[in-house]
């Protein structure tokens, strides 16, 4: 599997976020916000 280091880092952060916030449906907004932060940072890093 060919995954760049920056993507690996983003994936780990997503897992940490999911683990930290949990899967409660009431926390969906919080999860989505946190994921978007990680993905935005990752997408920008991918450019560099």
């Amino acid at each position, binding site marked *: *599997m060919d*995954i760049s280091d920056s*993507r690996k880092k*983003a*994936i780990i952060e*997503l*897992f940490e976020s*999911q*683990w930290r916030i949990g*899967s409660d449906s009431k926390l*969906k907004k919080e*999860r*989505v916000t946190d*994921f*978007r932060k990680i*993905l*935005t940072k*990752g*997408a920008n890093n*991918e450019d560099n």
Partner: protein
Amino acid sequence: MKIIEVTISNFRQYHGTSTIKLSTNPEKNITIIQGVNGSGKSNFMNAITWCLYNEEIFKSKTNQGRDVINESALFDSPNGVAETSVTVTVGERTPEFVFKRSEQYRLEKGMPFRADVSFSCQQIDPDKGWIRREDPAGVVERVFINSALKNFFFFDGEQMDRYFEDTVKIKKNVEQIAQIGLIDQVLNTLSDVEASIKKEIKTVSAKRPEVDIDPEDVAEEIKTLKDRKSNLDSDIKILDDDIAQIEEYLKTNSDTVVSELQIRRNELERERTAKVKDLDINKKSLKDLVSRYVSRVYAYGALQHTKNIIDEGTKKGQLPPNIKEIFIRELLETGICICGRDLKDDEESRKHVEALLEKVVPNSIVEEAETGKYVVGELIDKFSFSSEYAHYQRKIRELDGQLSEIRDNLESISNRLANYDVDVIATKEGELKSLKDDRDKKVKQISTIEYRIGELNTKMEDFDEYYRKIQEVDAEVKALNKVNNYSNLIGNDIVDIRDSIVEEVRKNLELQTKQYFFQMIWKGKVWSDVRIIDEGPRYRISLLSDHGQEALGDQSAGEKEVLALSFTAALYNSSGISAPIFIDTPLGKISGPTRMNIAELLKTYLNQTQLIILPTDTEYTEEVRQCLLPNVGAEYRISYDPELRQSKVVDYD
């Protein structure tokens, strides 16, 4: 996690309360609970799954539609009330969790009525002792066997034919073993993220302004107009030269009438230019005046009304008052009136002066009124709109009149020269008129062009504003799409990771099942391979004959059991779950020497786990017993009273 003991109270055919301690000794990992057919072996396992999962894992026609309460316990109860309960104590070595499920029943109209249910979990805490856990079902899932996997840990030897039927479930179970729950949750959140981004793109895109002009077309039109204007300017310059030549000819003409007329015309034209300039200035001033005073025009009426009220008060002598409050108070204080009367002793005079005090306007009002009058007066005085407006109007009218007069005079001079009795003069004047008409026409065209250029420039400025907004929206949408694409990329990576983990677990499970099977099976050379084949949504267990043909289903009962046990042992090892395995009637469909093979295998290949075997009396022969005995840590028998239809777990001996 092992089951240390089970306490069954009035559950199904178990009357009264029995506590069964299971062997937790790793060296003697087997617990035997022997019972004749129908004595309650399956219900013993049902009691455990009912307690932990609120589900009886082995369905039976006898149980169908009947409450779990032991009916004798309820019907024999003096007050018509009884409780059924099962308590399961689990722990690695010593009790760590105690799960208890109970149901209260009472008799209503001769029938059992379930009045109350409860499920609890107590956990030992090194500091606090036993504490109550709020989420007993969750605790079962986390510390014991996940409910999705429980079927593989409660094993019915009589159901071997159906063991591999639910292959979709097998795949799900493998996914459970792979602990990919968190991966699936991350993928779900990524889907939520993608949905939120798409929604936001829609919202942002809606803010993109619709532009009906093409800036390139507008720029092209401006360029064309400027070129046309430039050409017209050149034409006017040529016309001006031609006009100047003719005018010079007329001005310097030997005919003094002609030259004077031309000189006069030049003067009038200069005058006209000055007047036009003056007219423009006045028109601009008038425009500025209207803009400046437009808000005050609305307030003018109110100001005038206020001024009238103040003026009226003044006229009536109320404003300012002729006798001031302060003055009267001073008289009363000194006690002497201006006429010399003693206001202290002369009571009538004092009352008269005091009466005046009632009539005068108080000082505060006087001050406010005087200030108000001043302010209103000032505002009205400064409000010279009408007079200034009239002034400019008058000036504009005057200038219009003067210009009209100049135009008439110029026209008159032109007519005179055009009809002059010297042909060359008349011709020259005709030419001059034509040139001037042409010039005027071109000046008008320039004016139209300039107006249009102004319009187009405004459009371009508007477009710049739109363009900035469009760029903003496009940049925002681009950024959102970038995150969305990245999310897709990451999602694909995670799906790959997930698939590779599940595949690894599948391969491991396949390898272990195969190893166990070929270690356990006594006719090894009849079979060539055991496979767990991924068929998308399901896994198919495949057993190949020595000729490479599919042979699942063709094997004997004993062989089926070996395959199932192999899979269970592999599942057990792969799952990392440390939980007991229950095997009901392990030798039920097996006869002859195979029995001993299976007995040997149970002892050998499941020696790492707590194993609870529930054989019938015919399965648990002395030979089988002697085979297993070195590994047996607890041995029970289910005592069944067929008349009372009641069971009790007792020591084997």
